[in-house]
């Protein structure tokens, strides 16, 4: 068997639309309980093109991919391969049809070497042929300008390298269509650049690429053709001719127009109603000399000081992994303090557990909303209450009062606009944005005085980001103090009164968010220039 990529044809790569589509969807519909995940979708995927599928969380991107990868089957409509209807009833069918999928999370066996990973899935009676694999891999990777460390265990590879292995694996299986599902979400900026360049080289060799993303700039930078999904429908598409003709910002504007209703544009202004803080009273939160020893994955916290007044939004800026999460967990009571003190409204907190701090009004919105923030199999209703199990009025003498819980859950679902079929739906079935609204509802519920937000809008689409940010501003306006940990500087500049910068487990400076030079000052602090 030879190189799996069809020989490059310069004519083709310049005029991709001239070629018949490899795969087409015709009126494809997929329903799940309570939602239409894909609603009569038509889609043509041409060779030699990067086809971007763009949409917010819950727009139906993943469902579409799952159907092409043979993981789920459409209820209506058909999938055409070279114009012929095919049934992709298993991942094996999809692979045989030449559709290779690289999922968001690595599908490599971490303990096996790259070679062994690439050899997996061959006929069981055949002896693995490492030598010929090496030649085949070489033939694939050379023209693409990448190199694979074939003998390294998959676990030792960076996420970008793991992705390359998965792409090569798809090519080894003679894929004609390569699907990249949210492939940039785990990559560093330079990794994203590399992946973009790799995609260009792949399509220039005649492969069809489907690139799923919810990031506008990536879509504009890497795509040839864009289809925009919204609530399971295809709401717009931009073909290659228009794509090339438009300037990037015009393009982005057009995409935004497709993605959001008119009234949703310009909400930036309505989010940014930052009220002045009354600094005359006592600070709500006083953190003094807090320290924590280092672990394998986190730096030591060194003598941290932090204050927050009622109604104030204090940002904590910094590159991920500089101790922000540890600080948040110390505040929440998930970690024991090793030195220093934390006071909330004059009361010393050390020694109090998570529940007691919650009761006092100190809440923590985790950045890991599925891993620790919610219980995926539990209904939406109970997820609102997992931090106050046993407390009245929802429990009396240790017994649950189901009707009170349901009533309050319904109220929170309504107030926080959680889109769920029912309050009994397992929370894990909701989209990321809706799960975050459940968590937000829980932490902002009655009695909140100081809320620590850890990357509150991470991984959400623009619309949900704005909703969440508006909620945070409203909370501050009502007198709640907010600590916002974020790696998005723009978010902090939009929301915060003051921004502290954290580097290597220490707060290296705090900047008041007024004037033009804030961004510059924070940059200098992060780079290690003391103010």
């Amino acid at each position: 068997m030879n190189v799996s990529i069809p020989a490059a044809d310069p004519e083709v790569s310049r005029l991709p639309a001239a070629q018949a589509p490899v795969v087409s969807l015709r009126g494809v519909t997929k329903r799940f309980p309570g939602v239409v995940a894909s609603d009569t979708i038509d889609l043509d995927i041409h060779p030699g093109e990067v086809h971007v599928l763009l949409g917010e969380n819950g727009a139906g991107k993943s469902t579409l991919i799952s159907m092409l990868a043979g993981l789920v089957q459409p209820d209506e409509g058909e999938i055409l391969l070279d114009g012929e209807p095919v049934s992709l009833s298993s991942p094996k069918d999809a692979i045989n049809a030449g559709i290779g999928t690289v999922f968001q999370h690595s599908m490599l066996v971490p303990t096996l070497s790259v070679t062994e990973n690439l050899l997996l899935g061959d006929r069981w009676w055949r002896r693995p042929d490492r030598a010929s694999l090496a030649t085949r891999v070489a033939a694939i990777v050379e023209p693409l300008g990448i190199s694979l460390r074939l003998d390294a265990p998959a676990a030792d590879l960076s996420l970008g390298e793991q992705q390359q292995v998965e792409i090569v694996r798809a090519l080894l299986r003679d894929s004609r269509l390569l699907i990249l599902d949210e492939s940039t979400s785990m990559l560093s900026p330079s990794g994203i650049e590399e992946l973009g360049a790799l995609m260009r080289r792949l399509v220039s060799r005649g492969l069809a690429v489907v690139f799923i993303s919810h990031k506008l700039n990536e879509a504009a930078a890497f795509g040839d053709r864009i289809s925009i999904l919204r609530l399971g429908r295809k709401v717009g598409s931009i073909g290659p001719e228009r794509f090339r003709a438009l300037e990037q910002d015009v393009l982005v504007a057009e995409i935004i127009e497709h993605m959001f209703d008119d009234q949703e544009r310009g909400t930036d202004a309505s989010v940014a109603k930052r009220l002045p803080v009354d600094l005359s009273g006592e600070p709500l939160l006083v953190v003094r000399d807090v320290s924590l020893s280092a672990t394998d994955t986190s730096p030591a916290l060194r003598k941290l000081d932090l204050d927050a007044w009622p109604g104030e939004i204090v940002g904590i800026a910094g590159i991920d992994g500089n101790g922000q999460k540890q600080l948040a967990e110390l505040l929440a009571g998930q970690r024991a303090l090793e030195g220093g003190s934390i006071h909330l409204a004059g009361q010393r907190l050390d020694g109090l557990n998570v529940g007691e701090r919650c009761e006092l009004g100190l809440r923590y919105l985790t950045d890991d909303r599925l891993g620790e923030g919610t219980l995926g199999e539990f209904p939406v209703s109970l997820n609102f209450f997992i931090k106050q199990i046993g407390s009245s009025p929802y429990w009396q003498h240790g017994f649950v009062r189901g009707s009170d819980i349901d009533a309050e859950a319904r109220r929170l679902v309504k107030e926080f606009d959680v889109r769920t079929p029912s309050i009994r739906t397992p929370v894990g079935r909701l989209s990321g944005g809706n799960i975050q609204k459940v968590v937000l509802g829980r932490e902002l519920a009655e009695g909140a005085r100081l809320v620590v937000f850890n990357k509150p809008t991470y991984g959400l689409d623009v619309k949900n980001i704005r909703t969440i940010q508006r909620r945070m501003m409203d909370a501050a306006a009502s007198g709640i103090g907010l600590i916002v940990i974020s790696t998005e500087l723009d978010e902090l500049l939009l929301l915060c009164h003051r921004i502290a910068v954290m580097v290597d487990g220490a707060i290296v400076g705090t900047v008041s968010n007024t004037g033009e030079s804030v961004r510059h000052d924070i940059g200098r602090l992060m780079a290690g220039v003391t103010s």
Partner: protein
Amino acid sequence: MSSVDTELDRVSRVSPVKANLTLMDMCRPLLTTFVPLLVALLIASLILLAVGVDPLAYYSYVVERGLFSPSGLQQTLTRMAPLLLLAAGLIIAFRAGIWNLGVDGQFLLGALAAAVLAPALHGVLPGWMVLTLSIMLGALTGALWSLLPAYLRAYQQVNEIVTTLMMTFLGLSLGNALVKLVFLDPATTVPQTATLPVDARLPRLFETTVSSGVLIGLVAIVVVHLVMQRTAFGLRLRVVGSNAAAARHAGLPSRKLTMIVFALSAALAGMAGAVDIVGVHGNLRADWNPAFGLLVIPMVFLARLNGFAAIVFVLLLSILSIGGESAARRLGVPSSFTLVLVAIVLLTLAVAEHVDQRWRRQRLS
């Protein structure tokens, strides 16, 4: 169910489930239980035919002896007592995400504790007090036997499946050794403990031979079910069992709860052994190991960890084992054929679950 459906209809853009299928919904649990039972009986018939036994005679004998004859029914109900207690203990553990597979060891040591204490106190203390103390000591012994796996799981993250199974082997051997070396009844030639007189055992119900142990079992499993479903304590255990990171985030003391779960689960297993001794056997013979736990574990899963459903499955298991034992004596089919039958029932029930879930998925989509 109905409130969920109306909400679904109101919120979603499509009406997902048609109302006219509700009759089907109600019948489904019955269908998915009885159809596989029939299939299992058919498969077992083939095996019986192959060994030259008339399946109809065998089955009618099992049902007659397990369910329809007064003495058989009474034995079946009596047998349910330890099985229900074991099921109750297993439900607590599995709901909290802890695989206590060592119930047989905890059962046997609980039985031994009761078998030693009850005859010793007989005549010294009032009868009801002897029984109460013996059952409590059985529970305590079971709980103690789970202390090591509990500690290892809670504080050292050692997988409890391995440790509890290993503790069962140790427990069985220890029990045997203690019976033969320490607690041997000198009055008999058989290696066994001293015997609690029949009239000092758990009272029988009304005019029957049914031991009142079955009431203890029923109360235990219903209480466990309600605690897990309706109380804050039960919810805490379910949270820990569902997602340990979320439990930490919610501030639940996971380690403490793990220890408590082991203690409760193993105490119920030990209690099962004690109830079986002071209710039925009166003494503990060396090398006695009914291995009820391994039979109850699948029943509990088939009941989806629901206490009330578990009662039904335990009844079924009881009928099969009592009826099967009688049939073995009468028809010459080895008594282990009961195990074959139970195993086939389990397999067909599991297949039915699978088919049902596929069917349900298809209908919803």
